[in-house]
């Protein structure tokens, strides 16, 4: 029996971990400063994809000569996604959450409001841009309906394959196979983590933000304008998510739609809760654990489906059909989540919180 292509699976998991990291930093930030789960986070992801994709179309229309993607490239789209979604984040605070807080509404109201905002935005996006984004070819013949079009040179769909072993009797085939878009996701997520860590630890703004997350009242009596910090938090959290979504978009194999973000929301919450809500470092570890656990399950399930595997054995000897489709691996992160929460109720990085309670 030869090994499955573990190296390839490990690479896929790494990209998935990168996606989870990029897209959950914002959720964690909002939670740690404002203390509620922002369900509209799903729509920030969707909006980032729509914003960056439509900006691509607009730029193709305005700059038809830019076939070399000098301006019309993914980085510009990502910055646009950052700004649009970031402004949307501030709007949510100004129009809804700030008012709720002034009226002394509880956090439950904020959670429900965030669900409502998510629903409104999701349906608004579908109303205006269509459930699936489609360019108007009559206006812009150079526009494309390919959702994963990165608008970037060299072509992000270029696949890099590094073969280490091929058709070995024991190790089978082991290769690292990743497209340029996957590499970009990994690089961006690492850059984001380093940048955020630097900001949180070494800048006055970052320390003030952590201080506000710890205690709003104490931050105020230290001279921090906490309202401003809250606005910046929304802008940064939403912006980073929008940017992450723009970077993630070219990696998608199928077209995205107005529900894409929503489908990813549960894994996001799994990452945040597993890491310990509000913990930046815990969130990163959790993203890696969840990505690898999911991919490991894919490997194991495929193994069960081999001829002579567990699936066949069960069917032959017990007369019982269980399908070990790798697609069911999506549930595994949640199994891990529950197990970890039973051992460490406050998540991986929850020890500090626990100490805080004790003293």
């Amino acid at each position, binding site marked *: 029996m030869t090994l499955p292509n573990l190296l390839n699976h490990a690479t896929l998991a790494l990209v998935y971990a990168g996606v989870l990291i990029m897209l959950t930093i914002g959720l964690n930030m909002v939670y740690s400063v404002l203390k509620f789960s922002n369900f509209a986070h799903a729509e920030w992801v969707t909006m980032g994809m729509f914003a960056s994709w439509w900006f691509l179309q607009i730029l193709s229309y305005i700059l038809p000569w830019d076939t070399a993607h000098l301006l019309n490239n993914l980085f510009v789209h990502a910055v646009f996604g950052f700004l649009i979604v970031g402004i949307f984040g501030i709007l949510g605070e100004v129009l809804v959450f700030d008012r709720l807080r002034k009226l002394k509404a509880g956090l439950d109201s904020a959670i429900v409001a965030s669900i409502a905002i998510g629903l409104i935005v999701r349906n608004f996006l579908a109303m205006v841009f269509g459930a699936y984004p489609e360019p108007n070819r009559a206006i812009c013949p150079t526009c494309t309906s390919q959702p994963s079009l990165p608008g970037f040179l060299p072509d992000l769909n270029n696949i890099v394959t590094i073969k280490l072993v091929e058709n070995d009797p024991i190790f089978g085939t082991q290769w690292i196979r990743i497209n340029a878009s996957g590499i970009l996701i990994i690089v961006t997520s690492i850059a984001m983590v380093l940048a955020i860590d630097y900001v949180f630890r070494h800048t*006055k703004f970052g*320390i*003030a933000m*952590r*201080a506000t*997350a*710890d*205690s709003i*009242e*104490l*931050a*105020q*009596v*230290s*001279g*921090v*304008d*906490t309202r401003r910090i809250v606005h910046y938090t929304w802008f940064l959290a939403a912006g980073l998510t929008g940017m992450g979504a723009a970077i993630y978009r070219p990696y998608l194999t199928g077209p995205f739609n107005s529900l894409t973000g929503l489908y990813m929301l549960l894994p996001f919450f799994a990452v945040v809760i597993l890491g310990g809500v509000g913990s930046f470092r815990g969130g990163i570890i959790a993203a890696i654990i969840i990505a690898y656990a999911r991919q490991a399950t894919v490997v194991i399930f495929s193994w069960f489906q081999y001829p002579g595997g567990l699936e066949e054995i069960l069917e032959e000897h017990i007369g019982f059909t269980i399908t070990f489709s790798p697609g069911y691996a999506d549930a595994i992160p949640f199994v891990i989540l529950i197990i970890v929460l039973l051992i460490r109720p406050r998540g991986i990085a929850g020890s*500090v*919180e626990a*100490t*805080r309670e004790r*003293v």
Partner: protein
Amino acid sequence: MTKAFLRAENIVSGYGKLHVINGANIHIDEREMVTVIGPNGSGKSTLIKTLIGLVKIFDGRVTIRDEERGWLDVQTRKRQMKPDEIIREGIPLGYVPQLNNVFPSLTIEENLKMGLFVKKWDSYYHERSEQIFESFPILRERINQRASLLSGGERQMLALARALMPAPKLLILDEPTAALAPNLAEEMLQLIVSLKNTAGISILLVEQRAKRSLELSDRGYVLVTGMIAAKGPAKELLSEDKIRKLYLGDRAKKEKEVG
């Protein structure tokens, strides 16, 4: 002749529509230690929170004297300054809340730096922290630890140290000994008195350990249901029978009278 530093006139304040403080007058002079005592629920914390803008003021005003600018209106019905505005205005006021008085997820160094938030902390931090460490040597040893790992007493030290970082002229302390063991509480009160004596800081103290803190103070106020029921030099308050019976826990006498 000592000069007044803070004046609160006819303060009416509270939460929502509820009036907790009903027309209180207090003042604090320079280099003076003042204790506010009173039964639970009398509004002691609310009173000092009003001074720094954490509680809504309905009437009256709070003014603070600044060396250069003279008397400044800090809290009035028309214009209420939020605590961060007061600090950003450069009014030398320090406040240590009763609960949540340190930033648990920040290191001790970061906690101390937060005390200098409105200043250029990189240039001030070194000089100020060296002074602070003389009074609080334990903090220097644990400078890179998170505040959540400190014990109750060490936290209280850190809270005080943070408030002292910007070199305030008036320190408002809300029950600084609340969660401390008796020996630590005494140590803390002694430390506070020494701040007044050596650094010349005015202290406004709200305390449950009423008798001990009055013994150490210059003056005192007795707050009952949001009004000042008695005031005067601490020694006089201590010797007044009624106050001893009602608020200083002079149980022996109380029992004698009842019995």
